[in-house]
């Protein structure tokens, strides 16, 4: 078992109201698979990804990644955990605007000891020719590909994608999904994609459905479709 989520709950107190973002959630995830978390807005997708990525900690429960209980880690330990194991892809890319494309990729390459060749990764993502540009000089799709390159280059065991296609048009979105699929296949990276787009979930063999912070379904998809053929 690669990731074990055991009875995780997360509450937010907003004024007098308590919002339950995650309710006693338990999951087991295998290494090397591509998962999709599906759910409507506010269902707790981001909350779950943040906890898995060590950006946030649950109020209750445990998250064990590769045998290590990350809920027991202090901020320093979490930093090391993210550094060694996790790559992130966000809806709004979150590239560092003052760094060039290549520098953005180098910024994570720098953190790893057994990372991949930045040139090769950027070429795979099809943005090598833009390496000297700044993020604001790229289109959204290109920026997102750079963001994937940045996540991939350190060759992490886990890549977490929060609405990676949310801000993209259909063509660009598909391209991004294809690339994620490639990475999963080529490097055996465990990838978790959070989305509210049902169509996206068709490319995954394992689909988790969240509603109001609860796991309502964890289904095998016996016939995953290649990203290229997904459409909406």
């Amino acid at each position, binding site marked *: 078992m690669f990731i074990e989520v055991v009875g995780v709950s997360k509450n937010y107190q907003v004024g007098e109201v308590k919002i339950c973002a995650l309710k006693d959630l338990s999951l087991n995830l295998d290494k090397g698979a591509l998962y999709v978390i599906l759910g409507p807005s506010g269902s707790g997708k*981001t909350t779950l990804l*943040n906890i898995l*990525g060590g*950006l*946030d900690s649950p109020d209750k429960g445990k998250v064990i990644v590769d045998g290590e209980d990350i809920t027991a880690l202090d901020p*320093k330990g979490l*930093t*090391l*955990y*993210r*550094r*060694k194991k*996790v790559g*992130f892809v*966000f*809806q*709004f890319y*979150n*590239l*560092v*605007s*003052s*760094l*060039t494309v290549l*520098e953005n990729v*180098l*910024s*994570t*390459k*720098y*953190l790893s000891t057994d990372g991949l060749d930045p040139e090769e990764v950027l070429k795979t993502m099809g943005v090598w020719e833009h390496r*000297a540009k*700044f993020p*604001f000089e790229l289109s959204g799709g290109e920026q997102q590909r750079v963001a994937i390159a*940045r996540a991939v280059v350190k060759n992490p065991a886990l890549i977490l994608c929060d609405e990676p296609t949310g801000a993209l048009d259909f063509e660009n979105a598909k391209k991004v999904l294809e690339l994620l699929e490639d990475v999963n296949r080529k490097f055996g990276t465990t990838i978790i994609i959070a989305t509210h787009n049902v169509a996206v979930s068709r490319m995954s063999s394992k689909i988790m459905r969240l509603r109001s912070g609860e796991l309502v379904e964890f289904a095998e998809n016996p016939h995953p479709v290649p990203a290229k053929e997904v459409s909406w």
Partner: protein
Amino acid sequence: MLQKIPWRIIKRNKSQFLGIILLVFLASFAYSLFSILITNVDLNYQHFVNESNQETFHFITLSPVNTEEISQKYGIDLEERYSWDYDFGDKTLRIFSISEKVNKPLVSEGTLPLNQEIAIDPNFAQANGLKVGDNFQIQDKMFRISGFIYLPDYIYIIKNDTDFLNDPQHFGIAVMNLDDLKPYLSLPYHYYMARGEGENWDNLKAELNSKYRLLSFQEKWDNFRIITTEKKMESARPMAYLISSIILTISSILLFIVLRRLINSMHAEIGTLYALGYNEREITNVYLKFPILTWLLGAIPGGILGFLLADPFIKFYISFLSVPVVERFFPLADLLIAVLLPFVFMIPAGYLAISSLLKRRVVEIIKGEAEKGFKQKFRFAFLDRFSFRRRLMLKQGLLHLSRELVLILGVAFATLILLYGVSAAASLNNMVNDTYQNIFKYNYMYLFNNFQRENNYPEAERFTILPFTLEGTKTKVPLYGIEQNSRMIAVRGTNGERMKLEGLIITRSLADKLSLKEGDVLNLVSNLDGKKFSLKVSGIADMYVGNSGYMNLEEFNRTFGIEEGAFLGLFSPSKLDIPQNALLSSMDKEYVIKVFRDSASTIEQMIRVMGLISFFLSLTIIYVLSSLTIAENRKPLGIFKILGYKDGELSSILLGFNNISFLVGFLLGIPLYNFLMKMVMNQVLRDMDFSLNMRADFQSILITFLVLLLAFVLSKYLGRRKIYSISPSVILKEQME
């Protein structure tokens, strides 16, 4: 509605604004403190000099002068002064008769003494726990202390002409009525104080010398007890104004940088206000609140606190100078300048920052186009050969050169202030440990009031000192004739080797002051008879005390036409039993060293103040700049944190360039200091026979470095804590909105 914006933003960027407020505060505080201090001392000094008829010169003769005749002939006020040194324990009280025409005592408390009464100087009184109304015993008689007095020819109260520092613990002055003083008088010579207009007293000197045997003649500008105070005030003035105006300038530049960044970061907001229909003036008014608020919060409390705290500083300062502060002036002008000067700097800075943004088109403002264009310019391809982290660090620094420049200036300036304090202490220390022990090996110095022909004290060494002035100037150059192979004064060269006493050897401080080299000719005028001499400099000795020269006694006597074998003084390793009435003065080296040691605490005080100012100055500047950089880079910092960067790595990437700037600033501060000191020493102390080796030595530099390093490390720590407090998930949230 709009009026709420500035307060909210100030609250959000608390630390940055606090930093600037602190700087403005420091600037106003320093300015008002120093200027009020100096104005008070200046005005009181002038008042004192005018009211009490300060002497123009004084002289000593062997036989009594016909004062009536001389004063009429030369149109001067002339008055004999009687004095007696009352030695008790390790203390000396020099008691004078009360004069009526020249050098009248100024009463600061109580009254002038009647019979059976005495009035003493307040510094001695304070140091020795004496109050008005107390009884003071002199030998077997009791005198009531009627009051505290100051004398205008003993402003800087030193025992001997040659002392550098005053010592109220062990030496003081007093006045009493001549009738009371008479029984103690035993001086073999006569001392006259004179006041009159004129420049040239050569005729008077000649007449006095032929008729009454002139032993010494000293003009006011030549009198250490008077001139020290004036020179100290003169040297303090530029230092005080320089320090406060530099702090002010630096804080204004800082404010300008912060304001511009802040306003740029609010471009979307300002653009929206514009789009909503607010006009330029309304928007400017809102954002001008930033400089106005920081000014109000910094300058006004700073100026007022400076004014309130001036009192203890005035007391501290006058105990050093011994200027009577009888009246407390309220220099409204100084206070106004201290409060308003920051305003003059800050408001235009703020206005410029806003108007340069408002000049753009509304769409541009909303988009924040300025930022993009800026970044595009700097690609820094040449940095590519550095490692990733170093490259980012260098890029960060090069992108914000103006900030680094402020940091460099601030640190250089802090170095300068601190170095000044530390080297002052070190050079005094040096004087005691080096000069007074390794160079001046005698323990007692005796100066006769007449040339002697026979040395009756076998272990003592003969010498003569004659006062000269550099031709065409007022620079005093005393020359010594000493034994060829003196055991009492070690004249050494640069490498510590004993120099052969042939021709004229001058001290390093004199050489530095007059820019003299070996072989140069020195044109001197005798202060006693006005004769001129041209002497070739045959060597420069490694001595930093006194702007003086040395010759061997035989050559000295031949050169200046003194009878062979005659001498004026003795250096001795032990106390000699010479009758008081044969001596003009005597000096106990132990006493001099003691005075130095005692004054160390005063100087330590000064260093502490200097250290505090420079510590906080550098801390605030570095901290404000760092927090600005961190605030600006909140988002990238958040992303880097998500990616797994540690706080330490982030701080070294973002603020690593500060290390370089800090070092550059420090290294710049050292030559800057040396340059400044040279100027101060040359300009201010030009006419004085006084010179301190104030060059920064290794130890002073090290201490300065350590103090500033502490401030730097602390500011780094604070910056690191700021980076730590940035939460990655909050950054992600902010983005979504």
